[in-house]
């Protein structure tokens, strides 16, 4: 479905990676690995259409994602380093607004349910700024529960989460893969999803460590 063809990424004068080829099909999970600064986040930003690659193409099906744009973005859920939530809105409002703005209207019951499931029961009506970092992270991740996107691109989704939340997140990932979804993620944490083979993509191996 999603295919990277001879992808090259440059930041300033440095080439982070070049000639990167891989593809992901429904039901697959790719774990992007690499040391700090090897270009993991840059790769995810390129794949989600936030950043422009120096060379190469990203294809969705057979079409370039830059050409498809709306059609591709509808199938994409990207959760980056920044939580993307407003401190002055409540958890519930954040979830609903974020989904509506990305083009997926979520009913209020559905949003309540998602927040309950992600472990924010009783805090749905609090402004997000009074929540802890881990809880804010959960608000951001609750989007995964209501999203209709096929492809999830997750940048360090396990950051700031406690053990229970990590386990919960793993089961969500599992469910998505079993439902023929696709996931590309980065994390430095060990994680395991039952019965699913995790493909690994290593960045920066060819480079000599300085």
């Amino acid at each position, binding site marked *: 479905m999603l295919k990277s063809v001879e992808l090259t990424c440059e930041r300033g004068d440095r080439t982070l990676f070049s000639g990167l080829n891989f593809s992901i099909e429904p039901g697959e999970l790719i774990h992007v690995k690499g040391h700090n600064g090897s270009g993991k986040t840059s790769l995810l930003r390129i794949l989600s259409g936030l950043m422009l690659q120096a060379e190469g193409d990203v294809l969705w099906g057979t079409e370039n994602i830059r050409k498809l744009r709306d059609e591709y973005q509808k199938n994409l859920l990207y959760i980056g380093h920044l*939580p993307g939530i407003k401190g002055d809105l409540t958890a519930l409002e954040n979830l609903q607004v*974020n989904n509506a*703005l990305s*083009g997926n209207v979520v009913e209020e019951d559905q949003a309540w349910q998602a927040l309950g499931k992600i472990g924010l029961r009783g805090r749905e009506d609090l402004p997000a700024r009074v929540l802890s970092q881990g809880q804010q992270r959960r608000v951001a991740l609750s989007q995964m529960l209501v999203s209709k996107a096929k492809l999830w691109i997750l940048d360090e989704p396990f950051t700031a989460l406690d053990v229970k939340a990590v386990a919960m997140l793993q089961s969500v990932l599992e469910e998505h893969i079993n439902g023929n979804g696709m996931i590309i993620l980065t994390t430095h944490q060990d994680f395991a999803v039952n019965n699913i083979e995790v493909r690994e993509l290593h960045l920066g191996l060819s480079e000599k460590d300085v």
Partner: protein
Amino acid sequence: MISVLRWLVWREFTLALRRKAEILTTLLFFVIVVSLFPLGIGPEINTLREIAPGVLWVAALLASMLSLNRLFADDFIDGTLEQLIISSQPLALLVFGKIVTHWSLTGLPLVLISPILGMQLGMDGDSIVVLMLTLLVGTPVLSLIGAVGAGLTLGVRGGGVLLSLIILPLYVPVLIFGAGAVESVQAGLGAEAHFSLLGAFLIGSLILAPVGAAAALRISLD
């Protein structure tokens, strides 16, 4: 598409109402700058009446620029801007929604309070009406043009100063015809030509600015 705009407008208004200080600062800045002129120039009413259109317009221009920094900055910092950019909805439309709400929260209050400040500077009734109308047509142009600059300077260190350097020259035509309309009414001439030009600026920037600002945001986040 309409529902997305509705949600966006709802979000902007809710956020603004939970942070009232930000709306008030722009308004207070406008009031204070205008009030400084009688203090500096002296209470000679004829002089004040003569400079009033220019003073009010320059103050409105600075106040509107002051509020521009905030247009995309908060969304940039908390990451919601990333989500807007990869939304399946056209970015130019979302940017347009943001500009419209931004104007109604910062530009419209200036229009509404301008009669009081006009009276303070000794303007007569007719000129005040014309002043309000020029501000009503002109301040949206300021917000629209400003949005492009705000997009370009997003995340740049010292972006505020850079923003004014980019934007202020572009504000000049609006200032000339906005203040000019009021002056020509004061001098007993018609202001139709001025209004036609201001209207043309408004239509032109309505069409071009959201697209330009959207492109600027994509560049800033690259």
